[in-house]
């Protein structure tokens, strides 16, 4: 367990498929401090103190997708959500979410609609695209992390949802599966 400003791996999520909905993860990657909450949804516990998410990494195990018809440029949107209602069927509230093209990495173009712009199994930091330019390829390194740390309250459930967007509107793509989300940050 880290202290104060140490960056830690806070946990992760796996999405079996991502398409035109802000989808909840299908499974979670626990860490020692925060196990997977055994509820009807997939989420991790924040722990006894708040935590700050500083990097949200995405990893694609499979970069091949089915050619959308019509083919459209597609961005990867995300939403960090928490729940504190203590319910067995938790209700989640968005803490920070991004859907606008200028805040998201582009992962698919209409010019090459069958393979993601990403390299398989390489982590990309979603925070580094926030406040950037629309249509920025996920493969284009963003040197400055632009999304500030996202605070998650103590003793809360948190999860990361993913969805596909074109110009800020949800869009469907078939075959985008096995997407991993790695959450890094600091416990306070």
């Amino acid at each position, binding site marked *: *367990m*880290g*202290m104060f*400003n*140490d*960056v*830690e*791996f806070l946990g*992760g999520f*796996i999405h079996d498929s991502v398409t035109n909905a802000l989808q909840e993860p299908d*499974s979670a*990657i626990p*860490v*020692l401090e925060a196990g997977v909450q055994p509820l009807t949804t997939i989420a991790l516990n924040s722990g006894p103190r708040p935590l700050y998410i*500083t*990097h949200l*990494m995405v*990893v694609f*195990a*499979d970069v091949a997708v089915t050619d959308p018809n019509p083919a459209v440029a597609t961005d990867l949107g995300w939403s960090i959500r928490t729940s504190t209602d203590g319910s067995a069927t938790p209700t989640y509230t968005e803490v920070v979410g991004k859907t606008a093209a200028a805040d998201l990495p582009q992962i698919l173009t209409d010019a090459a609609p069958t393979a993601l712009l990403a*390299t*398989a*199994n*390489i*982590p990309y*930091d979603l925070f580094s695209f926030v406040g950037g330019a629309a249509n920025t390829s996920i493969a284009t390194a963003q040197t400055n992390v632009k999304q500030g740390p996202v605070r998650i309250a103590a003793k809360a459930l948190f999860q990361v949802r993913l969805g596909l967007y074109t110009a800020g509107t949800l869009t469907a793509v078939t075959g985008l599966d*096995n997407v*991993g989300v*790695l959450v*890094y940050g*600091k416990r306070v």
Partner: protein
Amino acid sequence: MAQPQLLFAGTYDNLDNAWAVPATVLVGSGTGVAATTGCFFSGPLGCVITDIYYIPRDLTFTDPNADVYIGWRVRYSADGGASFTTMDTVWASADCPMVWDDSEGDYGDSVLDTPLRAHAWYGAGVGGLTDNFYGDIVIPANVHVLVEVGPVAASALIDMPAADLDSLDVLVYGYLKG
């Protein structure tokens, strides 16, 4: 100085004349993400490995009729796991804890279910928990990190007589940069 964290833990089976990768990942950044089995991610800014521990969970194996040590090497991949670069390899007899002492006919430095601090044997070290004879290993950002172990002696892998040197837990400590 950052506080040490457990960066990775895995179980290694069937240690023989090859560098072994984890058969089971217990804890690690990215565990369960497809195609990263056996590895952990170094994190958005990289990480530093400060210690490697072994925990022998099974010390029943066929007599190798030779001194055998447990060596380790640290590798990383920046291309999604397609190819790996070796950063450090420690396999000289004087740098590693012994798992079979042939002259004594016992397990040398290894005790069942007891952690061995591998770094503390480096440079003719004698183990223990206070002295660290091996320096920090600095890993680049956003790469797969793979810690491999193997039965070694005199900087060579040992061909064990049977595939029954198994159930070795390896714990990797250090910290993420940031």
